[in-house]
């Protein structure tokens, strides 16, 4: 019996010729990640373990991005704890405000993850790097601490669900719509404990930014990881961003999958997840009249260049509906700067949006755009749980940057095509 992509990466990092689903292994880590929320707990555990140095100075990444720029005194204390630890341990990949970004936008941009890598991060959206053909998964702070101290982590080898993507997405349909469609189909625990492996000819029509969005939300189906086959676009991305050497793993032809889904990308419509779960999806044609108070465009899910370009394409020369608040937060300082140079930021501001420094802020109800009781937001983020973005009686609708931007103009959830035709 052959192995899946994920199983091959795990076997290689455990020094084994082969592994099978359910097997417990200990594997070597290429990168251990933490942020300002999870790292302070990990640092405490690291010290309790009696560890006095990290396993590798260049294989630990610390990114204060959640409550930064420091939102209050307690958040400042947490960031200080991470900063001092990074300095003491001489961690090479510590990113201060000014050079930082939202961790899952930043690490690929900095070339810290390449195909075939094994990455753990104390943040559930660490699965983002599967877009690069790497195995990456979210863990808690104690696992992060043990990973920083030993460079190893134990795993139960996952089985997998295969998604064969065919055809070409039409119109405004993006990676966000595809992954929302898939989560709507299999449910928020549809891939619990498993890998989601994305293969098929349709992948060539999905940009790297779109693939990051899709792998990012694998956790919203309960998956351990989401992973894409490596193609020319992946190689081009890696050559442009990294000097690390990489290994391409392909699934064996006789690899075993728990389930196989064939998805025709040409049939997918812009998709929106209604409150309060990411699997509560409807196509844009089934949305009905949903008036909104706020639009959030950004996050580790949709804060990349392509996302900002799409938003600007729709908002350029138009005005945000009176009474609607639009908050755009680019994923990294580089994305912010590139968007400035392209004129995107100017277009967004002229339309009436506010542009924030990179931060996780509003996505998790931290700061910079919290919702009051009864308010509704369309967000390009990843979760719409009860109270996720503010008051427990507020509502979050998950959508693509195109739908979010069109909704900003009309004040209700809108198909971008409808908006453009109306003009």
């Amino acid at each position, binding site marked *: 019996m052959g192995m899946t992509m994920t199983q091959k990466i795990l076997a290689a990092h455990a020094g084994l010729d082969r592994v099978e689903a359910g097997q417990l292994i200990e594997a070597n880590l290429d990168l251990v990640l933490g942020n300002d*929320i*999870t790292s*302070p*707990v990990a640092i*405490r*555990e690291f010290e*309790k*373990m*009696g560890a006095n140095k990290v396993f590798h100075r260049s294989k630990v990444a610390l990114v204060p991005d*959640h*409550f930064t720029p420091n*939102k*209050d005194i*307690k*958040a400042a204390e*947490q960031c200080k704890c991470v900063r001092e630890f990074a300095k003491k341990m001489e961690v090479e990949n510590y990113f201060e405000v000014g050079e930082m970004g939202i961790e899952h936008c930043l690490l690929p941009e900095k070339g810290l993850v390449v195909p075939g890598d094994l990455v753990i*991060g*104390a*943040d*559930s959206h*660490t699965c983002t790097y599967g877009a690069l053909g790497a195995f990456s998964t*979210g*863990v*808690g*702070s*104690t*696992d992060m*601490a*043990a990973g920083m101290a*030993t460079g190893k982590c134990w795993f139960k080898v996952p089985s997998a669900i295969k998604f064969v993507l065919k055809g070409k997405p039409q119109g405004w349909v993006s990676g966000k719509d595809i992954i929302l469609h898939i989560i709507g189909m299999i449910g*928020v*625990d549809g891939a*619990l*404990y498993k890998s989601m492996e994305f293969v098929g000819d349709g992948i060539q029509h999905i940009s790297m930014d779109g693939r990051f969005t899709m792998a990012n939300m694998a*956790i919203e189906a*309960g998956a*351990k990881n989401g992973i894409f086959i490596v193609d020319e676009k992946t190689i081009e991305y890696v050559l442009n961003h990294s000097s690390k050497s990489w290994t391409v793993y392909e699934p064996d032809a006789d690899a075993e999958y728990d389930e196989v889904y064939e998805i025709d990308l040409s049939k997918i419509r812009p998709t929106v997840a209604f409150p309060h*779960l990411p699997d509560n999806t409807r196509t844009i044609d089934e949305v009905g009249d949903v008036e909104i108070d706020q639009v959030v465009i950004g996050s580790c899910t949709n804060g990349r260049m392509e996302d900002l370009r799409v938003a600007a394409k729709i908002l350029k020369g138009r005005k945000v509906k009176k009474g609607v608040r639009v908050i755009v937060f680019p994923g990294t300082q580089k994305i912010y700067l590139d968007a400035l140079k392209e004129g995107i930021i100017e277009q967004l501001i002229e339309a009436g949006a506010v542009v924030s420094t990179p931060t996780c802020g509003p996505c*998790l*109800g*931290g700061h910079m755009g919290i919702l009051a009781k009864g308010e509704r937001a369309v967000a390009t983020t990843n*979760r719409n*749980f*009860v*109270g*996720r973005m503010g008051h*427990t009686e507020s509502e979050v609708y998950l959508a693509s940057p195109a739908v979010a931007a069109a909704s900003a103009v009309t004040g209700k959830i809108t198909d971008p095509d409808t908006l453009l035709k109306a003009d």
Partner: protein
Amino acid sequence: MKAKGRVFRYNNNVDTDVIIPARYLNTSDPKELAAHCMEDIDPDFVKNVKPGDIIVADRNFGCGSSREHAPIAIKASGVSCVIASTFARIFYRNAINIGLPILECEQAVKGIEAGDEVEVDFDTGIIRNLTKGTTFKARPFPEFMKKIMAADGLVNYIRTKNAGDGSPS
């Protein structure tokens, strides 16, 4: 190792945002976190929970964010055990790592209601609903997990182990 207490009963997909909302994550102090445990799904939880009480929920308990603050808040609130049909994987790992006992047992979940008195024997995996007089069997913890629980978490377990045989890990 046993647990006994009154049951707080929840449905599917209890996420870590409702277990401990992000607005309280500017601290990692267990007592402060416990003061807001389950606040967004059950505002009375903190007021009513007593040491030893048990949380019982349906599928996918602990989904969402990787915040270890979630099992830390539950444990610090006095809860002795969480029983669910299934757990989200990161929560599962985190709970074991910090020494919060958790069991997967769908039959027990179906046979337990809010307020029931329940007793759990972690060595055998036997779950007794004392209120209804019914018994269920979950798969007991493997040996290494029992040791982690007995040591009150992975870090203490590693420390104790190292102190015992003198070898670094």
